[in-house]
Structure formats: C-alpha cells, structure tokens
C-alpha cells in the first residue's frame, strides 16, 4: 500500500478539504484533533513501531520495558528470536516453574516470553551471563504516537490510513459544536473502529465491534425498492 510522509501543514489542508466553507475549527483545534486521531489509532492497533535494546539482570525472568515502547511485539536475545507473546496461563502450562527456572548454560536464549502489563515482560527460562553484566534483549514494539507540532513535522502512514485519520479528526473537531455536526461526522469515527477491528483479533469480540457489525448488516439489509419493503 502506498505510503507518504505528510507534513502537518498538508494534513491541516486536507482536513479543511472535508468541510465546505470556512472551517469551524482553529489551527490549534485541528492539530489537537489530528493528534487524538493518531493516538486512538495507535492505541487500538499498535501501528507505529520501533526497535530498542533493553537490559535485565541475569537469572531474572522480568524484563522492564521503558515507556517509549507502548507494547512489545517481538523479542530477541543474543540474536535468537524468542517465541511469544504467550499468555501467562499458557506459560504456566508450558513451564509451571517459570518464576524460578534459569537457563542451563550461559548463552542459552529464553524459549518463550509473555507480557505482564505495559511496563514489563517475562522470559522463560531466565538467561544467564558469563559475568555479572546484564542480559541484553532486542525489543520490537509499538512506540509512542508521533505528535506533530511544527508545520514541517511529518507523519509516516499509508494513504488509506491518512483517509481514516482525517475522518476521525473531523469527528473529533466537531465535538465542540456538538449536536447535528457531531452526529453527521460520526461515520468517520465508525470507519476508524471498523478498520481497527479488522486488524486486531482481540477487538472482534468487543461490544463496539459487534455494534458496528450489526450497523453494517442493517445497512446492507435496507430494501432496494419500496416493493421489497
């Protein structure tokens, strides 16, 4: 899918294209609405990624994750990929003693990892080091949402996503006006949620995903002609 680096100025302009006449929002409102749209999308889908190196003491199954990584996606240790994420329940079945299990040799990478909240993960078995030095892990995960501040700041996103984000931003900006405007722009928000639900398995079971599916199904069942009614 084609991806483009859009500047904040371009995004403001494209947002204005979605409204005939003078926008009902200020530049500051537009920036805030775009930032909110990006945050919601990243929270729901983990779209923006980065890779960092973190360290933990040898023999310790807990690996702290800094706040710059919102959620961990993959983990490698000593150049070897670690299987995961598994759930804590799965880890408990796989290795009931995971809290205390340690690698049997220096250099042996963990076999599995699990998330334990946003700020940490656990590995099994905990690796050992030759000396007292820490164990280094390479974490590939969801990074904090880019927030555009200066007109030339850019947002890396595929074109289809930009369309979704602008629809969401217009809906966000309409909150101040409320009433009919908030209602009219609601489909932009619903499209964002639908796209998130189609990307993330966990969301397909949520109530809002069900409501969206029902709304879409109801739309499809609207009779095509009065005779069908």
């Amino acid at each position, binding site marked *: 899918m084609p991806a483009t680096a859009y500047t904040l100025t371009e995004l403001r302009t494209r947002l204005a294209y979605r409204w005939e006449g003078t926008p009902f929002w200020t530049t500051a409102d537009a920036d805030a609405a775009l930032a909110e749209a990006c945050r919601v999308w990243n929270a729901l889908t983990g779209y923006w990624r980065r890779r960092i190196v973190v360290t933990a003491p040898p023999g310790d199954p807990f690996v702290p994750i800094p706040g710059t990584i919102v959620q961990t996606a993959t983990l490698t240790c000593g150049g070897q990929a670690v299987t995961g994420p598994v759930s804590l329940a799965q880890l408990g079945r796989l290795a*009931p003693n995971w809290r205390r299990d340690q690698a049997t040799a220096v250099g042996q990478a963990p076999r599995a990892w699990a998330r334990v909240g946003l700020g940490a993960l656990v590995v099994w078995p905990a690796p050992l080091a030759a000396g007292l030095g820490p164990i280094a892990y390479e974490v590939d995960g969801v990074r904090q949402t880019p927030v555009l501040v200066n007109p030339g700041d850019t947002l890396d996103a595929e074109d289809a996503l930009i369309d979704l984000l602008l629809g969401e931003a217009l809906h966000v900006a309409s909150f101040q006006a409320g009433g009919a405007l908030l209602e009219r722009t609601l489909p932009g928000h619903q499209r964002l949620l639908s796209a998130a639900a189609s990307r993330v398995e*966990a969301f397909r079971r949520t109530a809002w995903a069900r409501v969206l599916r029902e709304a879409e199904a109801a739309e499809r069942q609207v009779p095509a002609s009065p005779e069908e009614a």
Partner: protein
Amino acid sequence: MTNREVLVLVQAKLLEPGGGDALSWPTGLWTFAEAFAALELRQQHFLDATGLLGGWREQALLPLQDEQTVPDDTIQAVWHGIAEHPDGTCTPLLASERASMDRLLAAWRQRPEWPRVFTWEETGLGRLTVAPAPQTGGRLHLFGPVLPESVDDGAGTEAPMTVPDEWMPYLVYGVLAVLLAKHGRGYDGPRAAYCEGRYQEGLEAAAALARGWADG
C-alpha cells in the same frame, strides 16, 4: 502526560478559556477541584477495569489456612497466581468462583494439600482464598492491576498520569462525561452520553488487549 495537560485538553473540548494550566475555569460552570477529582476517579476506574497496567506482588503463603490476607492496596482483581513450595516448585493457580471450587475440590477444607485454585469471592477486599489450603508455608505470587499514583492532591499540583498517553483520549472523554453530566448550567445530556460511550469504547478495547496477557 501530566494531570494538568490532560485537563487542558478537556478545557479545549469544552471551549473553557483556561490559562493553560487547568487551574482556572473562568466560565464558572465547573471548578478546578471538580475537574481534578473527575480525572482521579476516571484514571483509577480505567486502570482497575481494564487491567492495562499489571504488577507482581510476592508475599508469604500461610500454612493450613485457605484465607490469605493481602495488602489493602491490592485491587480486588488478581488475574494470575502462583503458589511457590519451599522446595522452589511453583504451581500456577487457576482463578475460580467459589461454587466451581467446591465442586472441584469437595473436601478441600479438611484435606490440606497444595493450592491449585484461588478466588476473590466472598472474602472481599484484602483477602484471597486458595484451595486446597497449603499443608506447609511457602510464597504466594500474585499478578494484578496496579493502583495509580494520585493525580489530585486538592491543590492542582502537576503530577504524571499513570494511564499511557495512547489511551489518554479515552480518559479525556471519561472526564468530559462526568463534567457534562453535572446538573446545572453546564449540563449537556447528549454530549455527556456520547462521552460516556467513547470512554466505554476505550475501556473495552484496553481490557481486550490486557485479557490476552493473562488468559489463553
């Protein structure tokens, strides 16, 4: 983000001409004390209900008793438990309702062994029931939601939020739902309902993510 930064976002949505620090609410429809209190309430609820931030606790597992006391600040929701035997062997504890527990282990009160299930039910905050009761002492490892640091000291002091920035838009809607539902000149039923819906949307999404960490 800090508590003040979040409330500045709230003010912008309300067209409340604050001074950029969330301490001033010139329209008089709301006070800064109400706003900070709403933020405190919503943050605690968001973390409690979603389990977005989890933490481990370790404490003594007392022998021959099924009810184990846990610290008061443990939120009444433990997702995952481990009973560690003195020999270092760990047994994952399955979360259970009391009724299921009784069916599975009919005589657990009379037959101390090593815990296999736990429940929060019946005993309430600060107590956790394990079954069967441990025949010897050990260690209890509990994984559950983390209580956030307070963001409302009554004076509007700036304090960092515990909820990650990515989920902050939903917290903003949570605060707006409280403020717009206030009976008085600022009351706006439709927008309050909309905001509550958006807040619930965030709760559900965050909870769905967090459930994947413990379940499966």
